[in-house]
């Protein structure tokens, strides 16, 4: 690397940019997933019952289906009262309505529940005697989840495209370094060096440059996360701000550094492979 500091700098910089962009996208997806889980975790599942249903029996069945969760039976009168309260000053609109206009229900509070758990609990609650409809109020979260799933697929495709593009770009940059040392390669082959012997220093160099680019990129991502997280929490009105690990878990950071190393190694192999074919 000391023989071509310019090429080393450009190659490291290219890997830095590639890993940073990929990391930014991965962090955004990961953060969105966490937010989704947080929003889903605030769900309250309501089991709407037939007016003739036995409310106490339904509450007991719901408590059995959701062990450890707070379960409350809400009569039709109580439901109307809460609705009126929710309407505030416009509560008078409900004057004259008979108490049975809203169905009785059983409400299950499930703080911290994951979306898939909420879905499965709702399914179990459908078996509550007298249950007419189970609403876990997460239709929009589900839509968001579907969108995120699509984004994850798109992200994987983007990651692949970026990785291939970066490998070609870094490969071309490293070719400059290989080209500058073509005489050395020619002489190595002249004295009987195997392809592996010729390639090894270039691969090690590529690996080190990749790791360096990866470490720098994760450092930059870390800095961005630290700066952006409080603002993001304020913008989204989150009660509990996202932690650094919600955006950039250690496994992702490690994967990005390793990815940088792999990118540098593959790019080097491409660059020196071409020169070996030529010579």
């Amino acid at each position, binding site marked *: 690397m000391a023989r071509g500091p310019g090429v080393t700098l450009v190659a490291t910089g290219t890997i830095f940019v590639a890993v940073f962009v990929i990391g930014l996208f991965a962090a955004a997806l990961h953060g969105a997933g966490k937010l989704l889980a947080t929003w889903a975790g605030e769900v309250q599942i309501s089991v709407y019952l037939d007016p003739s249903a036995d409310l106490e029996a339904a509450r007991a069945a719901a408590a059995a289906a959701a062990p450890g969760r707070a379960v409350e039976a809400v009569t039709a009168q109580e439901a109307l009262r809460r609705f009126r309260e929710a309407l505030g000053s416009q509560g008078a609109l409900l004057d004259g309505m008979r108490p049975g206009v809203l169905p009785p229900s059983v409400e299950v509070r499930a703080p911290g529940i994951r979306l898939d758990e909420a879905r499965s609990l709702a399914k179990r609650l459908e078996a509550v005697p007298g249950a007419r409809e189970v609403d876990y109020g997460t239709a929009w979260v589900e839509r968001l989840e579907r969108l995120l799933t699509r984004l994850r697929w798109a992200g994987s495709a983007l990651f692949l495209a970026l990785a291939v593009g970066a490998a070609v770009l870094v490969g071309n940059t490293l070719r400059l370094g290989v080209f500058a040392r073509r*005489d050395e390669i*020619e*002489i*190595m*082959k*002249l*004295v*009987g*060096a195997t392809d592996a012997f010729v390639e090894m220093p270039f691969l090690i160099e590529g690996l080190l440059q990749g790791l360096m680019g990866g470490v720098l990129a994760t450092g930059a991502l870390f800095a961005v996360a630290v700066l952006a997280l409080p603002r993001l929490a304020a913008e989204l009105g989150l009660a509990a701000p996202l932690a650094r690990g919600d955006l950039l878990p250690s496994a992702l950071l490690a994967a990005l550094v390793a990815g940088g190393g792999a990118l540098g190694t593959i790019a080097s192999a491409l660059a020196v492979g071409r020169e070996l074919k030529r010579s």
Partner: protein
Amino acid sequence: MIQLFHVCKQYAGDAPALVDVSVSIGKGEFVFLTGRSGAGKSTLMRLVFCAEPATSGQLLVFGRNVAKEKRSRIPHLRRAIGVVFQDFKLLPDRTVAENVAFPLEVRGLASKEVRRRAGGILRSVGLELKADKFPLSLSGGEQQRVAVARALVGDPALLLADEPTGNLDPERTLEVMDLLHAANARGTTVLVATHDRSLLERYKKRVVALERGSVIADGAEIRRAGMV
């Protein structure tokens, strides 16, 4: 040691570089390959060194058909061949000792053994005091002696020298030729490509003459017939 049977070499868009060349060089021989520029001397050297394949014909080096050798075997074949070029092909950012030691490092020899053998060969070419110098600080003759030392350090069975004295004055030419002769005396087969007639006159060795890619004469009789 080297056998060529009806070897042809054609580069795309060019006149044939070698045409139906059949030559046999035995173990321990010293052979001059001569001819004008473009006669095919360097091409023949490159084929023997497995730098490129023949277009047609058979080429055997050490009894092995090089066209049938796996690519991964070629470096091992090359380790038994020393090569010297007109332009030396030394690494400018490595010392004389490092340049000479390079073929041994490539073979993975222990560093102590590498130092011992490189030091020995540098003494034999009279450059032991220049071991720590860089090639560009040496004269042309000295650089070529380093190149010869590098070619011989691995104790090759075959030494190929492509115009080894082309850049040297007469005195340095004799020094380098003496080194090649000494290697031949120790049993190394030597093939020297040159267009320097004075060398052919001075050293009474077998001469293979090429013209436009074809062998036009082979043997000591060339000299007697005044063809060189």
